[in-house]
């Protein structure tokens, strides 16, 4: 399935969306672009940290709610669109549901595994308990000590970048995964952006490397470098210059619009994006081979 088709089939205006949950790697920027191109509106973007992905969607007017722990530009600092929306309501106001990284982790965990809420201590004392009214301060009935309840969070759709998948969506991921597993299992639908599509035997050779099994996946899209400019372990280096360029260009709303036309709206799809990047993208491709030691699954 093409990514455009996956987005048009599975994402409606008003959806709660996870665009990657690994923090700063494996961010599905290709899906970010497609949501902008298809003009989705009133999205609630949920993620601990998704680097400039959330900032782009805010600037393009797709977002009315942000649920997470951090929105900005890991290279540049502030996300200009996020600031403009929060400070001046431009392009329109956004509601911010604050979490810390661990508490949004627990919210996804609860959503994934059918717990109504999770009691934590890690958010005590923080004003996030005041700004996020879904978090309840209560007493541990065993000890009487203060504890904060984090209710389950269940996204509508989760987009995930994986290093390799088979056609059925059985997916191998390696390197740090942040909240990828919990966020995707919590989601009603999972859309996989596979950097590489491989034969089922490759995935089946290592079922312990599977983070997302195919039976939970709603669409599988073959999108090489769908993570650009974020890194993908063993596949693509981070495009640091691209992040700095975005930061510089988007200081003013007009600048963001120009950037967004050039890099998103004026391009038909991710193939066109890759073609426009050209040699810059090729320079980021990981050519080395540092393989993992094999695990043996023989039975006799």
């Amino acid at each position, binding site marked *: 399935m093409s990514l455009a088709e996956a987005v048009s089939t599975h994402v409606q205006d008003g959806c709660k969306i996870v665009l990657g949950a*690994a*923090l*700063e*790697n*494996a961010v599905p920027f290709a899906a970010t672009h497609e949501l902008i191109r298809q003009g989705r509106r009133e999205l609630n973007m949920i993620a*601990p*940290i998704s680097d400039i992905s959330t900032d782009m969607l805010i600037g393009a007017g797709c977002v009315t709610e942000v649920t*997470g*722990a*951090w*929105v*900005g530009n*890991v*290279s540049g*600092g*502030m*996300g200009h669109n*996020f*600031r403009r929306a*929060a*400070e001046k309501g431009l392009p329109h106001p956004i509601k*911010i549901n*604050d*979490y*810390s*990284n*661990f*508490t949004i*982790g627990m919210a996804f965990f609860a959503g994934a595994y059918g717990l109504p809420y999770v009691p934590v*201590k*890690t*958010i*005590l*004392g*923080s*004003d*996030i308990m005041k*700004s996020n009214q879904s978090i309840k301060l209560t007493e541990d009935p065993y000890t009487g*000590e*203060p*504890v904060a309840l984090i209710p389950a969070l269940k996204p509508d759709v989760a987009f995930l970048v994986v290093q390799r998948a088979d056609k059925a969506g059985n997916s191998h991921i*390696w*390197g*740090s*995964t*942040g*909240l*990828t*597993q*919990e966020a995707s299992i919590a989601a009603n639908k999972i859309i996989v952006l596979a950097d590489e599509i491989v034969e089922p035997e490759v995935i089946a050779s290592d079922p312990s490397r599977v983070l997302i099994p195919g039976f939970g996946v709603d669409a599988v899209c073959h999108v090489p470098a769908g993570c650009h400019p*974020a*890194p993908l*372990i*063993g596949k693509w*280096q*981070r495009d*640091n210059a691209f*992040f700095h360029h975005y930061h510089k260009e988007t200081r003013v709303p007009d600048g963001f619009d120009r950037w967004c036309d050039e890099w998103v709206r004026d391009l038909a799809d991710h193939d066109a994006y890759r073609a426009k990047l050209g040699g810059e993208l090729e320079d980021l491709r*990981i050519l080395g081979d*540092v393989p993992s030691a094999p695990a043996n699954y023989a039975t006799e």
Partner: protein
Amino acid sequence: MTHDYSTQELMIIAAARQIADGERIFVGMRLPITAYGVARLTHAPNAVGLFESGVARYEPADGMLYTMCDGPNQLGAAWTTGLIQIMGLLSGGRVHAGFIGGAEVDKFGNINTSYIGDIDDPKVKLPGSGGAPDIAAMAERLVIIINHQKHRLVEKVDFVTSPGFLDGGDARKKAGLPGGGPAVIITDRAILKPHGPEHEFHLASIHPGHTVDEVMANTGWDLKSIPDLGVTPEPTKVEMDALHHIDKDGFWRS
């Protein structure tokens, strides 16, 4: 006075000294990760570095990192896993110290990385908390790194993203926070530490070349000094050699 180290290098060495051998440390990027590397090469060869995305490392990564998720931070790591496994160590009380920065810190060590001004109509919307509140709540001690300016070291933060001693005294304990709270603020002018039963941050040492008046003029509260106020010890040759070994390009020299 001439020193053959920069202010930032002095801060890195001061930060490195906050890490004891064998400790598990939430590192973060930039200055703290360099401090972690210095500590590993000098007095803390068995320290373990933790990164919120799901990485634990013994040796720091080889080469410059832009984010904790970059390839070099994962290659040869002790563990690449999920956020819950790594931050769960924190929640489970198994982390000794964490480094965090912020836009504002107040006299009780509370940190703001969320909203400057009114939360419903903020003057500045900062990027947010990341995992800092969890680290501040749970680590045995917190090391705060911040530039020493009057609008950064304030009487009271607009929004407590990451709790220090809250309103001081036993407020932190009453709030149910298990971790020990902020142990030190390292700035580009001085080192501050909580003092007395109120846990108000006091001037603990002044970096060489700076003065008490200058530090006080750049602090947003009526800063008191600890009784045995001294000068921040200069980096040793061993420490500087370790730092130069890591910072081959001289990023922190200027």
